[in-house]
């Protein structure tokens, strides 16, 4: 059953338990967030999606990604406090990832300029430690990555800092990475990521890479696909299909 929440005094419909951030974005509110992805559980790491709760027992500033919608919830998405705290957290993130276009764009928009020294670079350059890669990798069943260490020494990566056990070279970690800081290199023959190379399985029609061999084996075993499922790439499958269609019609 749908419930109602109030965002900046505007009534918005939501499902109970839905992420407030998702509800707000759907209704067209612009709340920045870097560590959020609707496919995985929110952990509230980046601290940018701040809103101010104005109802209930615990009013005050809070992140919206890991806040669940409840009937009658009242929040505001903008206030001097929100802007101030969001700018400070953005500044801290920018110090970690000065090379990230997304962060630079946000910083330019809010007039944030770093005044502090960057923290020591313990892990991957430009990584903001949001763990989206870790969470997505786990959700896909590979579990190749983890948050490692804690506090200022926290970083993300595979076990023992070695080529990741369980990694199939699918590249999902990079595709969700907000700062695009994960290093992945594709050549016509293979993909290199997390210290390992993965040979490509090629399209039997056009010869283009379809998927890494290891990812192919994983997907076929896990999803029970036919052995030849990845033998032809999507564009070639489509053109084959349209050719079949044409031969029937004409």
């Amino acid at each position, binding site marked *: 059953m749908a419930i109602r929440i109030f965002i900046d005094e505007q009534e918005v419909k939501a499902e109970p338990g839905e992420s407030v951030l998702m509800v707000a974005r759907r209704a067209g509110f612009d709340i920045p967030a870097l560590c959020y992805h609707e496919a995985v559980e929110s952990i509230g790491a980046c601290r940018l999606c701040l809103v101010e709760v104005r109802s209930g027992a615990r009013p005050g500033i809070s992140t919206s990604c890991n806040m669940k919608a409840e009937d009658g919830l009242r929040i505001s998405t903008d206030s001097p406090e929100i802007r101030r705290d969001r700018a400070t957290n953005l500044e801290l993130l920018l110090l970690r990832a000065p090379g990230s276009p997304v962060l630079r764009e946000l910083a330019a928009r809010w007039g944030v300029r770093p005044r502090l020294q960057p923290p020591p670079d313990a892990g991957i350059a430009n990584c903001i*430690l949001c763990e989206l890669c870790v969470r997505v990798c786990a959700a896909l069943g590979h579990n190749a990555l983890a948050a490692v260490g804690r506090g200022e020494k926290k970083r993300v990566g595979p076990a023992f800092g070695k080529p990741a056990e369980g990694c199939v070279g699918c590249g999902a970690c990079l595709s969700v990475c907000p700062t695009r800081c994960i290093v992945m290199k594709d050549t016509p023959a293979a993909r290199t990521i997390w210290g390992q190379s993965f040979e490509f399985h090629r399209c039997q029609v056009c010869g283009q890479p379809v998927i890494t061999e290891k990812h192919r084996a994983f997907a076929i075993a896990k999803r029970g696909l036919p052995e030849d499922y990845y033998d032809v790439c999507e564009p070639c499958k489509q053109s084959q299909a349209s050719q079949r269609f044409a031969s029937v019609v004409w």
Partner: protein
Amino acid sequence: MPRFSSEKDLESYRHKVAAGRAPDRRAVAVCAGTGCKAFGSAKLLPVFEAELAKASLKGKIELRATGCHGFCERGPLVLIFPAGRLYTKVKPEDVPEIVREDLAGGRVVERLLYRDPVSGKAYEKEEDIPFYMHQQRLVLKNNGLLDPASLDDYLALGGYRALAKAFAMGPEKVLEEVKKSGLRGRGGAGFWTGRKWEICRAAPGPDKVIICNADEGDPGAFMDRSVIEGNPHSVLEGMLIGAFAIGASTGCVYIRQEYPLAVERLGRAVAAAREAGLLGENILGSGFAFDLRIYRGGGAFVCGEESAMIASIEGRRGVPRRRPPYPAQSGLWGRPTNINNVETWANVPWIIDRGADWYRAIGTEKSTGTKIFSLVGKVNNTGLVEVPMGISLRQIVFDIGGGIPGGKKFKAVQTGGPSGGCLPASKLDIPVDFDTLVREGAMMGSGGMIVMDESTCMVDVARYFLNFLKFESCGNCTSCRDGLYQLHRLFTDIAEGRGSEHTLELVEELARTVKATSLCALGSTAVNPVESTLKYFREEILAHVRDRRCPAKVCKALITYTINDKCNGCTLCAKRCPQQAITGTVKKLHVIDQKKCIKCGICLDVCKQDAVWVE
């Protein structure tokens, strides 16, 4: 040890144990707490044994190793019963004299008595010593009387009587009694214990869990360790009563791995309680079943936070998660969970045994009962003190603690650990209770009380806590992880003479955001030490910033070591200087080369002539 199947069983056994123990029986109690053990108390026991045998007193005088007495500064402590005589700083070579003079001869060994450092007065009895006189011991009361390894000892002092009483009362009445007592959690924010139990009891799901938080993480606090080491059954009894009131059949004790002795003693107590039928099925014939497991922490301060502790028990990284849902709704293994700390649980048997009205009469209206503080730092009588809530800081630091050593001036007392704050001399007369401390910018926390004198630098202390916290942050939230890193860096700038007014502005700005936007209490309270320092010790910070001066002479970058004409040329400092920065010949004035000096302070420590000067 028989297995008790009913209250009658328990009482008749208690009667039997007590009958064998005349109140005036003679005994020697050697403190076996961590403090006294570190001073070598374990070596005393075999010597006592041998000497008692030699004096043909073996069997006539009982020899006991007991829990912590709290007066750790003076350890090892030895108590002579029934007189209640306390000998302090006892060494193995003192034992023959104690046996010969006191135990065999009935003469007091004057030189081993506690002597007041100021008045020089010697005290014979423990209870007359100012350190103990102003205390009101409840939770710690039996620590010095019983052998923590002996369930008999605990039973002889009335142990598990409250549990039997609770069974007779029924869970609702027990809950009412705890609510009425006004007991508040001794581990941090001081939430009402009865209310917390009630929420968990009311939560849907028959399969509830209780946890004892023994992850005493505040540096400078060790009361929980002492209670578990000295009287583990009192914690188990409190947990049993709580479990009965809440309706939980499973319990966990999450204990710091840094406390090996406490882990061992608790494990023994659990095994003894199980053997006696005080844990397990149908306890004392009540139909109530409860058992517990001990989990060792891995060494992470953040695991004192409830949701992080749950994650750790479940075998995961101790990262807090957003609440709600609260542990009382969905906690350990998804079950409704109630968490209290060691001291809170240990208060429960007293409340049930003596009643809520009796308990309420101790302390203040909104902070009832007693609180244990670990009084440490720059104070004469270091140790554990248990006092009624509402007593003033001054009474604790000066009447009980005996003031500051070496005639130095009191500067501040830090309460509440890394989430607390530093209170200055002008706050010495505030009553110590949950709400007043918070109002003044500090916190009760678990009860660490670190005294600081004029030679403690408040910039250095703030930097110390920031260093601690940036290291202990789980690293999830940007604000906490990177904010604390930056705050520490800014305080380092101040300590090293690179600070400016702009640095202070940045500090204040960052502190606001860390506090407002971090997920858990570690982050949101992490700036308390900073904010209280800015509030009460701004002048001292400004001395670092404006004058490049550290008034307490602590911050290395702002001080210099020189040798004055008191130097008699003993050459000791030159020999020990790791940098070979000191030159001089025998019987001639020595000189420190400031270019080579790394300000390690070793010359100051080794000089017997008081000739090394810090400015």
